[in-house]
Every structure is written in C-alpha cells, then in structure tokens.
C-alpha cells in the first residue's frame, strides 16, 4: 500500500473511529468489547480497501464489519450468552456488508452520549481527559501518554480506571435530559477546553504549544458544536479555541514567546479568526452569555484588531467585567486590570494590581509578576520592574517564556539605575 493510501485511510479512520465506537458502545453497553471490534474493523479495512477500493459508505462498512465481529465474540463467550439473547443482536451477524444498501440512518451519531459518559463527574478529572482522548479522539494509550507528558503506564492506568468505573458503577451512556443539561454540559466543555489548555500551557520544556493536541481539542470542539448546534456555550468554546489558535504561528520567534503587540499579524490564520468571529455572534446572541462565549468575544476582539494599538480596549475591559461577574477568579481580575491599563494608562492598571497583590493564587502565578513588571516599565520604574521580572522568572516554566522574561529583565536593568 502506498503511503498516500495509508495516510488517506488514516484520516477516514480518525473521522470514523469515535462515531463507530460510540454506536457500538450504545448497542452492546460494553466499552472494552466496542473498542476491540472497532480496531478489528479498522484493521480489516486496511487489508481490504486498498485492494477492493474504499466503499461508498465507509462508515457503514466499518459498522457492519465491527458488528459481525462483536456477535462472533459474544457467541464464543459463555458469560455473554444471556446478554446476547437480551440484545437481539443475532441479526447483526447476517447483516450485509455491502455499503450501498446500508441506509445512513443505520449509523446514527451517538458520540454525544459518549462525550457525557467520558466527562461524567463521577470520574476523576485526569481520567476524564484521558478517556475522552482515547475514546472520542481515537488516540492510542501511547499517544495519550505523550499528550500529557506522563509515563505510558500512568496513561494506561487512567484509561483502565475510567473504564472500570464506567462498567462497574454503571455510568450510563446517555445525554442528560434538558433539565439536567445546564448542569452537566459545562463538564463536557471543560474536558475539551482542558485538552486545549494542556496544549497551550506546556508547563515546562522547549515547546510552548503542542500543535497535535490543540488540533485534537479543536476537532472535539467541532464535533460538540455540530452535535449541539443550539447550545451557545458549545459555539463559545469552539470560537474561543479558534480565535486563540489562529495566532499560534506568531506566538514565538527564535524560541522566544512574543506578546500580542510584538506578534507578526501576517502570520495569524484569517480563516480561523473569521470562523471564530461568526461563532462568537451565535454564542452571545439571546439571553445572558456564558463564560466561554465572553472569553471568545475577548479573543476575537484581539484577533480582529489590525494593530495592537487599534485594539478595542474599552470593549475588552467591559467583557472582562462581565466575565468577573459570571465566572469570577483572581486571574480574570488580573486580565481585567491589564486591559484597564491599556485603556486608562499604566498608573491606573498598577493601582488595580496593588489590590490583587496579596492573593495567594496570583503570588505564584508568573504572568501576574510579568504584567506588573511591564506596567512598571511603562511608568519608568525600571528597578522595581526588574524585581518583578525576577519574580516571574523564578516561577515561569517553559523555555520560550523564560527567554522572553530574561530579555525583558535585561532591558529593565539597562534602563534602570
């Protein structure tokens, strides 16, 4: 098989894996069985398609093949015999493999149920991320381990712990009812956003952004948005990730992180920004906005500004104000203070930061010290700025961020006494 065929098949598989798995889990109520026959079906496709050609409905072909394997397994396993009768799955064995006569309704999209199962609050947060990447993004255990920079054994433990709890405590495969949805949806969005922030907050090491992981999060965000077209926060989350990720190519230069005002805006992905802006409109239309929608609106304003100086700071300050009421946190207050400084001048910003200085969370948050140092520079208080850059350096993790802070520290020291 040519590399090209393999690559194009792999992209089909990435698309179909989550749907196939979700459908099979739904049908057989057994995540392990569903996983095994999903990978067997993909394996079979790798053997047959390069010779017989890719079927017209690859998804239906895969589903039929996987079902046959599942029934074979259920038959062989005595302990499943009773369940087999209950499931009435015998007809699956006889179902035709011909793709053309499989109606597409036969392959409904049940990934949303799988999202809610993988993001169930009864699972540990780390386990939720791991099982979501495993089941919905179709990552292997090794890939999950690489995504979180953890040993493969740890990733394996997280995945199997989650599976065991799903099975033994019987976490249901279902989408919550309309009255429960507002309570449960944030958990699902949180899982996807956590995968995205993990890609962006490499706490150590040489790379600031892990592209593959960010792209997985975007892919999951797109699926969620497609499955929940009326949920504005699903649009908000996708918009936030798009507007942020659109700037990734400009975020570093020569291994050093660049602040927004230093970035080459030519490198920003205009299509992604436009897509994000459109989604923001949906996220903010009708009713009071959610935190993802508001954050997306802020990211979108940054992305749309032709130059840093032309950024709509008054609007950004307003939006941070909204965010501070619906999702208050010291970090939101910090960001609002930074935006106020851009609108009203560094002195006003410094006064606001003074009020936040005692917050223990911000004490150990290097962007706080870096932001304060930056404002002190703008007020020509270079010696104090140097102290704050040193504080930030002591806390900062990734090498690109450290390089930026070292450069700023040197500049402050040179300008100071």
């Amino acid at each position: 098989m040519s590399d090209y065929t393999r690559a194009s098949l792999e992209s089909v598989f990435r698309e179909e894996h989550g749907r196939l798995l979700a459908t099979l889990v739904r049908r057989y109520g057994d995540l392990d069985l569903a996983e095994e026959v999903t990978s067997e079906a993909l394996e079979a496709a790798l053997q047959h398609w390069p010779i017989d050609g890719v079927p017209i409905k690859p998804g239906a072909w895969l589903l039929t093949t996987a079902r046959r394997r599942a029934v074979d397994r259920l038959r062989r396993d005595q302990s499943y015999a009773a369940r087999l009768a209950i499931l009435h799955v015998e007809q699956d064995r006889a179902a035709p493999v011909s793709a053309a006569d499989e109606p597409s309704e036969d392959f409904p999209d049940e990934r949303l149920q799988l999202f809610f199962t993988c993001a169930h609050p009864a699972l540990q947060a780390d386990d939720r991320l791991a099982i979501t990447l495993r089941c919905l993004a179709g990552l292997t255990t090794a890939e999950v381990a690489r995504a979180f920079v953890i040993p493969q054994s740890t990733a394996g433990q997280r995945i199997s712990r989650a599976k065991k709890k799903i099975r033994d405590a019987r976490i249901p495969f279902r989408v919550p009812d309309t009255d429960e949805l507002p309570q449960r949806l944030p958990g699902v969005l949180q899982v996807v956003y956590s995968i995205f922030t993990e890609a962006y907050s490499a706490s150590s090491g040489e790379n600031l952004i892990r592209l593959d992981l960010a792209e997985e999060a975007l892919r999951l965000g797109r699926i969620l948005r497609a499955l929940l077209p009326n949920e504005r926060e699903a649009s908000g989350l996708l918009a936030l990730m798009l507007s942020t990720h659109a700037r990734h190519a400009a975020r570093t230069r020569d291994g050093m992180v660049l602040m927004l005002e230093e970035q080459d805006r030519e490198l920003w992905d205009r299509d992604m920004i436009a897509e994000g802006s459109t989604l923001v409109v949906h996220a903010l239309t009708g009713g009071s906005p959610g935190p993802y929608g508001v954050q997306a609106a802020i990211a979108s304003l940054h992305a749309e500004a032709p130059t840093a100086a032309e950024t709509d700071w008054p609007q950004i300050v307003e939006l941070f104000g909204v965010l501070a009421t619906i999702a208050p946190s010291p970090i939101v207050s910090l960001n609002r203070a930074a935006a106020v400084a851009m609108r009203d001048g560094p002195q006003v910003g410094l006064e606001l930061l003074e009020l936040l200085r005692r917050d223990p969370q911000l004490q150990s948050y290097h962007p706080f010290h870096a932001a304060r140092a930056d404002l002190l520079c703008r007020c020509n208080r270079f010696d104090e700025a140097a102290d704050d850059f040193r504080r930030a350096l002591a806390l900062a993790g990734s090498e690109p961020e450290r390089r930026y802070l070292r450069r700023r520290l040197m500049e402050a020291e040179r300008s100071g006494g």
Partner: protein
Amino acid sequence: MKYMLLINAPSAEFDNGCSVEDWVQFGKEMQDAGVWVTGHALADLTTATTVQVDSAGERSVTDGPFAETREVLGGFEVIDVPDLDAALDWAARCPGSRGGGSVVVRPIAEF
C-alpha cells in the same frame, strides 16, 4: 443494579437540620418508586463495638470506633435502579446529603 447509599455526617453531634418527617418522606418516595431494597439508620456511634481477629486466631473486642474519624456513618439504604445517574439522583434527594452531610454511593458487587 443495586447501589448502597452510605449516609455520613461530619461528626457524631452533627445536626443538618432535617426533621424525622424528611426522612420518613424520603423512605416513602423510595418505596413508591419501587427502588427501595433495604435500609436502616444506625444507633448512636457510642454504642459501636469493634472486633478484630489476629493471625493467631485471638479475638480482641474494643469499644468504638469513636468520632475522631472525620466522617460518621449514620445509616444506609440499598436501592435498585438502572444506573449510576439514577442512584446519584436518589442520593441527592436523601436528607443526609444536605447541610454538610454527605452520601457515598457504592455499587453492590454482583458475582
């Protein structure tokens, strides 16, 4: 599937403000829904006795455990419901989950 709801209070003297009627009502709701299997409130923690048998087969009996443990098991219910979400819903309706108390939901192992 059967789940046990373990009803915990943060201390022996703890009062979460729920009345006897609240508990009676909760029991009735479970029975009316046909999910109740069994359940009991436990007598005061000071009446508890602990038994241990060591490797030599020697039995030791001690008073307690006492309330220095952070959570005190005050009672339990066993319910039969389709899945964890249903069990969590019942746990949330249990008066013991309110006012600082908590309910631990444990699936009952099936062999």
